[in-house]
């Protein structure tokens, strides 16, 4: 069935609390787009035009309501000095973080450093692969920006910080050197804000992604003390532009869901949490994006997916602020295309708003010139 609205029109209504013709559909197709377009995954994340073309092909092939750019959470950390390997047909792998232990960045006046050294923030135009994203956003925006929202995932400060320092040292630092962790978060935030600004200039809507702040990795207390304030700082910046901000935290967020609206996020993209629990925790303040299991979309069959998506939609449509039918995390690279199609088909069918545009609430009248 042909849609009445374009994805952009649909998203526009969602973010101003208006009903849409149907629920927006957003399986998080990121590097899987490389498979759809028939290019190597490495080409996807090292060449902005290739990334954009892959996403355009995937968006059209599947009929998805968004174009979203993402490869891995180390993007900003790489631009700040962490080293990554680029396997031919897999996502970048962290080879060596910039620091083996928590650095003394000297931001804190109570720091014991005799002379705090603050390395320069990342330049979005020249450091790491940030430019790849910007090129991709600009290309896709010119190609389809009138009809489809162009999203760019930006790793949040907490996730970025864990890619800058040996992860064990970082997590231990949460307990033993919290001030140094906060200095590091501040340092990462500066580069992240700069990157967001560049994405805005290119025509993309930044999405904040903070998977390493999930309950699968840290405690509720640490989320509140470390991750949440830095997420909120980036979101405050994005709100200067009146942007509708998505915060994506995959993994288990059952313990933190009620706190997540405090970041200021307008939409929460969730993973391992039941939708009714997400609605109870955050649904009065945020739209919910979620949350079909990614292992199911990889391993299951289309019939099962359709059945499960129909069930998910029943729960999702109870969200008072609105719902986007999505996967809980990225669609795995090797997901069979028929499974993604099944997801999209089922979500669109179950998400139709049959009352959209009907003028049934009042009597329709016509009066003629006398």
């Amino acid at each position, binding site marked *: 069935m042909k849609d*009445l*609205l*374009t994805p*952009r*029109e*649909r998203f*526009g*209504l969602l973010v*101003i*609390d*208006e009903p*849409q013709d149907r629920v927006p559909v957003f399986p998080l197709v990121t590097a899987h787009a490389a498979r759809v377009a028939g290019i190597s995954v490495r080409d996807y994340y090292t060449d902005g035009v290739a990334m954009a073309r892959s996403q355009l092909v995937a968006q059209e092939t599947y009929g998805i309501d968004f174009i979203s750019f993402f490869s891995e959470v180390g993007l900003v950390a790489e631009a700040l000095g962490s080293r990554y390997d680029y396997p031919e047909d897999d996502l970048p792998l962290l080879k060596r973080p910039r620091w083996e232990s928590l650095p003394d960045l000297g931001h804190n006046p109570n720091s014991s450093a005799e002379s705090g050294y603050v390395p320069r923030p990342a330049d979005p135009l020249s450091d790491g692969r940030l430019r790849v994203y910007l090129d991709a956003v600009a290309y896709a*925006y*010119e190609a389809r*920006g*009138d*009809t489809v*929202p*162009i999203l760019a995932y930006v790793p949040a400060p907490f996730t970025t910080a864990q890619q800058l320092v040996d992860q064990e040292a970082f997590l231990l630092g949460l307990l033993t050197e919290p001030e140094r962790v906060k200095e590091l978060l501040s340092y990462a935030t500066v580069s992240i804000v700069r990157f967001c*600004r560049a994405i*805005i*200039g290119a*025509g*993309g*809507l930044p999405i904040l992604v903070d998977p390493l702040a999930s309950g699968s990795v840290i405690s509720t207390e640490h989320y509140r003390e470390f991750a949440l304030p830095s997420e909120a700082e980036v979101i405050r910046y994005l*709100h*200067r*532009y*009146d*942007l509708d901000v998505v915060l994506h935290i995959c993994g288990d967020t059952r313990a933190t869901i009620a706190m997540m609206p405090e970041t200021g996020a307008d939409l929460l993209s969730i993973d391992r949490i039941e939708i009714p629990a997400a609605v109870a925790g955050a649904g009065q303040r945020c739209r919910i994006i979620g949350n079909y299991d990614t292992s199911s979309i990889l391993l299951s069959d289309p019939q099962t997916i359709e059945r499960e998506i129909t069930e998910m939609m029943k729960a999702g449509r109870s969200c008072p602020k609105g719902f986007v039918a999505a996967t809980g995390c990225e669609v795995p690279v090797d997901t069979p295309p028929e499974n993604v199609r099944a997801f999209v088909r089922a979500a669109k069918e179950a998400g139709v708003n049959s009352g*959209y*545009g009907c*003028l049934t609430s*009042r*009597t*329709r*009248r*016509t*009066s*003629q*010139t*006398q």
Partner: protein
Amino acid sequence: MSAERDQGIKGPRDRVPEWADPKPERVTFEQWLELFDRVPDELIERYHYYGNRDAWSKYLFPPQTFSIYGARHLRRLRFDNSLASLRMWGFVQNETERLFRARQTGRRVIATMGDLGAVPVIVNSFPGCVAFYPDCIWWTPFVMESRVLFDAAAELGIGDAACFSRAALGAFAKHSYFPDPDLVVASTGASCDDYSGVEQLAERFAREMLWVEEPLRKECRNPNGECRMDCEAGVRLLTQEYERVVEAMNRVTGHELADDELRAGIARANAVRRTVSRLRELAYGRGVLAALEMMVIEFGNLHYYSDTDEWTAVLDHLLATAEGRAARGESIVDDDALRVVWVTPPADPLLLTYVENAGARVVGTEYVINQALEVIDESGPPLEAIAGSFMAASLIGTSRARAESVVRQARERQAEGVIISGILGGSHCAMDTRLISDHVKQELDLPVLEFDVAPPSKEIGLQLQTRIDAFLEVLRSRR
């Protein structure tokens, strides 16, 4: 920063950080991003529409915000670099959301179509009512560089052979550009035929449609060409039609409009019209505002971008900026720029940017909204006064009357040329353009450039660029 340059943000209602506009300049999309970095959060927090204080009613945002939501053409325009201009663009670009928020906050949303300026004066006099023109959506395909609305209109039977205003029909069909109106007041008659067609096709999407007849303006000329307008019958007819509008609004709102309310509505409309009149003098006479911003300002007279009070404040801010520039002898266009009068509003705003980039400045306009520029008589019976002002409408009279307005402005501002941007398929353009062109040449011996605006695109077509460049070269050579 100099306090005396702190234009439009003075006053006791808020303590705001000092803001000094930079030297007047037309800046690019990217330059506005740099400027916006300097805008303090307190200023962003200051401006709200509908007198609301919720976060959704803020509107001081840069072109980038609207670009991200699809307004791709903004990336190619040049903007006035003042805070007032930023405020104006943010306010105008925000209108779709504002209309939905109007409905969400309990206001009645009334679509007014076709007459371009008169009926909103009545509608906005009703408490809690907001008038808007779907007609103005004709800019949306250009601003978004998109055929989406045209395609939607084509599916309903009105295709590329019709005026760009058909975009309004696509918007009705989609229910996503404005809330379904509580009432549609559709004016037709001695006006644009294409748009009458759009209105008829849009009726299926209206809860209630009230048709209003626009009379022809009789213009009696003696052998010397002097004209005597005979408007009595027209005013009589229109007054009756407006009485029907009032009746319909009384019924829709459940509120009986009082004479005082209507008079107050006229006074508010006139305040806007007087401010715009002064801005026209300053911009077209002194070059303190550019043509792009002025087109947005002039069209604000139609329905005040759905919030009369806030639009009035935006205009006051712009006027303070313009007067400040005039007092300091500043201008946003080159002193020796070529002076042109622009006839018929360009659906593609990039045309204004292009012409100004090429070294011209607009010193007068005939944007077919003369009726919205006239100050309404506040002394007589109010509906009759609104009808009387409407009789100045550009499109209900002869092409000769439009041509005379162009000639008058060209003489007053020593214009060196006239540009007429026509609309392929626009019924009045097909007739008016040549007649206006001939009259200007005959009366003033000025070069006239006529062209049809091309469908939405990322750039001005090369052929048209060449024609504009050549035209301006001719004007230069005549100096």
